[in-house]
């Protein structure tokens, strides 16, 4: 019986993934746009590295500093967009009503969004990584096993923000859609993607310490410059991500409850 219930849930989650996979596979512009931005950004930072490397000690010792940073940053960005855009697609197509009168539960909807986000991230960032290897002979896998730790923390942070953005758009309508593109960039200055957070003013450093991504990029620099994996940074990021994820899910579920209360689910659309 328990297996039956779990099987039904899995089937519904996969149905949602299948729905979005159908959409992606038949739309080459969508596929292209997923890979385009990370690849172009990577190329830009790769040339910055080529330019600065002869005169910069850091880059001489760790030539992958910027390219690695931009690829990792994109895991966060693609992860967040993957969750938000999966939800927006349902709103654009006025399909939310059909989904919410089906047996699909809220947590299954969330799981489907997360799975789609993982797929979109692997496609988008994967393409950029392939180009980094082909064009600049830089392999993200040179980070070794710690790459898994960085990946997990960044994508979970992206998921938390993506769920929060989905909730806000459900609450305030597609007028709030811009949040999907802007939300992550609010974290960029305090994440220390391209510089140590020590260069920030004291009050911004305090904020940075509350953001999981700052620990990830500090960890990446420690790995590239000192060849050491700092476990404590990984654990701290994981703990803060746990809190982020709980907050993201809570906001999303609250927004679904609000939509049920105010009759938004059958009305939502372009």
């Amino acid at each position: 019986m328990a297996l039956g219930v779990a099987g039904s849930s899995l089937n519904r989650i996969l149905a949602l993934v299948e729905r979005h996979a159908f959409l992606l596979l038949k739309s080459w512009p969508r596929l292209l746009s997923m890979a385009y931005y990370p690849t172009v950004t990577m190329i830009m930072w790769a040339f910055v590295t080529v330019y600065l490397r002869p005169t910069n000690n850091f880059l001489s010792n760790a030539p992958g500093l910027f390219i690695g940073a931009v690829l990792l940053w994109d895991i966060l960005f693609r992860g967040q967009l993957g969750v938000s855009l999966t939800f927006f697609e349902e709103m654009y197509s006025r399909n939310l009503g059909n989904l919410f009168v089906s047996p699909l539960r809220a947590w299954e909807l969330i799981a489907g969004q997360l799975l789609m986000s993982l797929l979109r991230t692997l496609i988008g960032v994967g393409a950029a990584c392939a180009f980094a290897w082909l064009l600049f002979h830089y392999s993200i896998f040179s980070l070794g096993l710690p790459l898994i730790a960085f990946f997990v923390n960044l994508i979970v942070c992206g998921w938390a923000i993506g769920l929060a953005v989905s909730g806000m758009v459900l609450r305030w309508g597609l007028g709030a859609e811009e949040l999907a593109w802007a939300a992550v960039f609010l974290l960029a200055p305090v994440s220390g993607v391209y510089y140590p957070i020590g260069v920030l003013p004291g009050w911004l450093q305090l904020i940075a310490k509350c953001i999981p991504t700052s620990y990830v990029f500090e960890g990446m620099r420690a790995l590239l410059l000192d060849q050491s994996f700092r476990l404590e940074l990984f654990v701290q990021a994981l703990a803060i991500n746990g809190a982020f994820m709980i907050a993201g899910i809570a906001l999303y579920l609250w927004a679904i409850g609000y939509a049920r209360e105010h009759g938004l689910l059958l009305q939502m659309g372009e």
Partner: protein
Amino acid sequence: MPEIVNPVPAAVIEVRDLRKSYRQVDAVRGISFAVGRGATTALLGGNGAGKTTTLSMLLGVLTPSGGAIRILSEDMLRHRYRVLPRINFTSPYVDLPKRLTVSENLRVYARLYGVENPRSRVDELAEELDLGELLKRPYGNLSAGQRTRVSLAKALLNRPEVLLLDEPTASLDPDVGDRVRTLLEDYQRKSGCTMLLASHNMGEVERMCDEVIMLRAGLVVDQGSPAALLERYGRGNMDEVFLDIARERVGAEDTIAASDRIARSLS
């Protein structure tokens, strides 16, 4: 919220003292009704009477401010997910993903509803609803009538015991409208499904419905079979009965008396 203490044995849908208030609007003001197994019942009323609000609450996409809903003997407000796999819904105001083909849309929803052998069920419905030539076409490229048939196929995927239909033939030409009605009647004949539909098409109501629930300003103002209503209002067709009620030719006292009568009949 009030419990339903003495449910009507044969009732598949039971609604008791259902209310929905927004900040400044009382959209539904304490309605009660029951729909028997295998019956087709219409919710009638002018724009803003509370039909769609009522259907939304029955489907669980709108939280009532008060009252109780029981569908297939389950408390819909507490155990929605026990009921949802056994019912379905269609409305011209809710779409399916437009870039997916008809076949892809139906396969996705078949999986969502846990339909066994989705492929054969989709083929079966394609045959019944004459969708064969549409299966490979994107949903967004279809005409309004074709979309309605596809939405109906989606609503029949899980062989629902209860079908909730919001204006199932709105904006369809008479030919397609007639075909959709025939399809619904065929399905009901074969399956014994219970149907509750909101409609503005009085011909449809007279043809399909065993019972009519008349709503005005969020209240049930009358209820009965089409024949009984025609006799009660002394009219020749349901259009005239509708106008009598929508234009408030029935007084407020009658409205309250009718609501009381219906509530008493349920208890």
